[in-house]
Structure formats: C-alpha cells, structure tokens
C-alpha cells in the first residue's frame, strides 16, 4: 500500500487563531482512515482545505502524486477526491436517479453536442452511469426510492444518498464528513456494513466522525487532532487506549471512556 492522499504541514488561521497549525498525515490507498478530535480541533477545517472549499495559508496536498494544493473545489473533485458534507447535501427536488447521474456527469467524455446528437459516446456514458447508480442504490438499500425525489427521504437515508453520489465517478478517495452524525442508531450499522463492503471492493475512505465506536470498528488507521495539531496517530486499538487521546478527546480516564462507549452503543 502507498499513500494516495498526502497532506503535509497544513496551516490555516482565522484572525490570529490557528485552526490548523502544521498538520501532516497520509491516507493509504485502499484503507479506511479516521480523523478524530474534540470540537474545534480543526477536523472540519482540514477537510474543507483539502477539498478546496477553504483556502489554505500554507502546506501541500497531493492526491495520487499530483499536487492539488489550493485548486478550486471542482478541479479537486475532478482530480478524484469526492467529499460529503456534515449537514447532508443532496438535491432534494431531483430524483435519486438524477442525484446520482449528476454526480458522475462531469467525469464522462460526453459533452452537450454528444447529447444533442445522441451519439454513441453519450448513450454509453448514460448507460454505464445508470449501471453504477443501480449497483450503489442496491448497496445502500434504497432501490424502491430510485425514481423518487430525495426530498421525501429521512435524514439518514439522505446521508446514504450522499455517500452513493460521492462514489459514482469511481473516485480515488472519498472524504466523509461525519457520515453518521444525526443518524438513527439502527441505521449506523447499515452504513458501517456498506462502507466495509465498499472498502473490500477497493474504495479508499477518509472519515471525520465524532462517534468513537463507529471509528474504532471501521478504521485501519486513526489520526487524532487537537487544537490544530496532530496529537497522535495509530491503529484503532492503539488510539482507543492512548491516555493522551482519552484526555484530549473525552476529557476523562480510560475507565470512564469505556463506560461512555458502552453508553453510546
């Protein structure tokens, strides 16, 4: 395995406050990597900067060997980094099918002339996009909603749609911003299974999440941020027992943390 996403020395400050103060980490291709930290530790800022939604003050981001630092968001997406958002974003007034089709549309070679003339290239693009969409919809278990407007779906279901949309163009890496925040606990397990299945099929994920149990079950590697710096990094098991992490992230002792995790589950 080699690093598909390499982030080094990210710096970002808002009016003198260092949201990111030299953060570096790698995401291995084919892995599920977690990014955790207490509120205000810089997780969201980090992925906004990586995905081009905020401007970096310093540092570099490379994706599959290509430098994508400070490119506009749409070009970073085209380079193969797809992301979801903390507050779920889908096109509420479009069908699930259209939601997924749009997500892949920029990545096929068919332009508007192809569409107008209904060329072979256009038909093939539409066909392969639909095939991918049906596959993903089956994976997230929303087949019966395929033609329905996504506005009628529940919050948790929309999170699944956002996940499927991010996967549509076969990206190099998918960055998930709190994929299970606000999701019904019974559905969290479904998302977990779906992510594991996708990962086995070769997808790479970087996940920002508050739910410790979710992260420790899923992730091969976990990066912990605190106050804009990387506190530590290791396997889920290592992180789970690291007293520094427990103190920074939960502000409590290991025994209390164990009880907390049981409580959350």
């Amino acid at each position: 395995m080699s690093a598909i996403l390499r982030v080094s020395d990210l710096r970002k400050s808002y009016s003198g406050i260092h949201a990111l103060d030299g953060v570096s980490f790698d995401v291995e291709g084919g892995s599920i990597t977690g990014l955790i930290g207490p509120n205000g530790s810089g997780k969201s800022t980090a992925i906004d900067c990586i995905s081009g939604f905020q401007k970096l003050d310093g540092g570099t981001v490379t994706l599959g060997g290509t430098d994508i630092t400070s490119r506009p968001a749409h070009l970073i997406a085209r380079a193969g980094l797809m992301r979801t958002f903390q507050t779920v974003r889908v096109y509420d007034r479009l069908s699930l099918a259209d939601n997924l089709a749009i997500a892949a549309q920029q990545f096929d070679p068919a332009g508007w002339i192809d569409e107008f003339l209904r060329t072979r290239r256009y038909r093939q693009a539409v066909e392969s996009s639909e095939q991918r969409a049906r596959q993903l919809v089956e994976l997230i278990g929303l087949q019966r909603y395929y033609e329905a407007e996504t506005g009628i779906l529940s919050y948790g279901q929309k999170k699944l749609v956002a996940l499927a949309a991010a996967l549509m163009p076969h990206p190099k890496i998918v960055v998930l911003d709190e994929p299970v925040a606000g999701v019904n606990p019974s559905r969290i397990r479904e998302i977990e299974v779906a992510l594991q299945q996708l990962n086995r099929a070769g997808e790479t994920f970087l996940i920002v999440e508050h739910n410790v149990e979710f992260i420790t079950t899923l992730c091969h590697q976990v990066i912990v941020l605190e106050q804009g710096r990387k506190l530590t990094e290791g396997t889920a098991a290592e992180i789970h027992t690291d007293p520094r992490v427990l103190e920074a992230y939960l502000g409590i002792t290991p025994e209390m943390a164990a009880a907390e995790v049981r409580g959350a589950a």
Partner: protein
Amino acid sequence: MKLAAALLAALAFAALPVLTSSNYVVGVGISALIFTAAAAALNLVYGFTGLLSFAQLGFWGIGGYTAALTVVSLGGSFWTGLLAAALLNAVIAVLVGYPMLRTNRHAFVISTLTFALLVTLIARDWVSLTRGPLGIPDLPAPQAFGLLFDTPRKFYWIAWIFSVAAIAFLFALCSSRIGRTLVAIKQNEPLVRAQGISPMPYKLTAFALSAAITGAAGGVYCFNLRIIDPSFLDFYYMQTFLIIVIIGGAGSFWGVIASGIALSALPEVLRFSDDFRMIIYGVILVIAMFVMPSGVAGLLRERRVARMREALR
C-alpha cells in the same frame, strides 16, 4: 404526454387568426405569444438556475432598440435586426453577467435592477443614438418571401413562429443535462462544486441565452407596435414576465408556458381601468403568493410528492 399537449396547443394557437375576425383578439394573441417566450426565458435564469434577474427588462429594451435601429439606421431587414438583437444581448449578458454572477444572490438582484435602470436612462437620454423621448416611429412592416406582414393578422404568424421556436429551444435546453445541472446549481451549489462541476459557465450560459431570447422577443414586439420609445422599458413589462413565472411556478417549464398564455390576456382584461391596472396586478400577485407560494405547478407538485410519500410509507 405534456409534449403532445404542447404541440396541440401550439397548433390551436396557430389557428387563432382563422377562428376570429377580431383584430383586437389577434393583437392580444400576439402579445401573449411574445410575453410567454420572454417569460420562458426569465424562467430559465430565475426558475431553473435560481437567479432573480431584473436585467431582462434591459435586454428587452436593448433588443427592441437594436432591431429598430438595424432597420431604420443601418438599412437592414427585420430578420437581421432580430439576429443583431439576440447576438448583441448575448455579448452584453456575458460581459455584465460575469462580474454580476461572482457576487452573492442578493447583490446579483440589485445589480441586474441597476442594469435595467441604466438601459432606461440610455434610451431616454442618449438622444443621438436612440432619438430620446420621441422614439423611433413608423417602423416598416417585416417582409419575407415577397410577403409583407403589414396587418396584425399577418404579423401574428411571425410572433407564432418566433415563440414556438424560442419555447422549443428552451425546452430542449431545460430537459437536457445542462437543464438538470442548472436545477442542481439552484438547489445546492456547494454540492455541485464537490461533484466536479464549475457553476459559473452554466450560469453565464443560462444568463446569455435568456438575454438573447428576451432581446429577440423585444425586437419582435416593437415591430408589432411599429414604434419604439423609452416607454418600451416601462417596468410593466418586467412585472408581467415575473408574474407569469411566479404564478406559473418558477422552475416548471410548462407551468410557466400555460400561465404566460393565460395571464397575457389579463392586462387586456384590466385595461378598462388604466389607472388601477398596476394596483390590481399587485393585489393579484400578493394573493397568488399567499395561496400558492410556488405557483400553480408548485401546488400540483406538492400534491404529487404527498401522494408519493403516502405510497412509499
């Protein structure tokens, strides 16, 4: 289904001059056709892309003046005038649209309004170009294939062909992937960017095409009036287009077409009280906004979604 209905409606409209002997009714029909095309163009930017553009009034005026001046000052034909109106508007829309579209949505609304007011000023005060408040009277009747379209009854065909062509073009655009992308931009711009799509070229294209069609519509309309003067930039026209779009349902293609035809008759019906026309208009708009905030099409859509929700429960 909808397409078949639209085709039938277009054919029925083509038969209007044959069915009535009243020039007045034919005149209303001409206005209905042209206003509907202009409203459909506004629907492209406002309804589909989510950009409330008051610049339409400016494009309408520029189109009218360009067509008139091409014929009167440059000796071109009516058809070259229309083409010039469309092209000039598209170019202006790209030039002013680029900086406008980089601002946020509220600033965009204000700057388009300012643009419309600026065009009004030019029409009135740049006398050497526009002939000022007196305007350009006695516009010649259009000609084609040796025919002179010099009566409302004949001119009706020009309006019909123009509208049907403009609406067909807009329909093809709105139902394509470009149209779908415009809807996506309106609904969730950050998500569009996260999916590798740059919103600016789409918005600019929509704005420019809408400007071109509105300008050509203005060109046709001033040759219907046979005169153009600064009153061609009366806010009344903008208001008409906007009411058609709002009542039809912004973002609903056929809803706006249907309401365009229906509401174009309204100002004629209201003509009995020229002084109160605007006030009555305003009242109708306010009531419509209360009863159906997303237009007739929005009302129907909400019912459909409710049924779907029920069915999937």
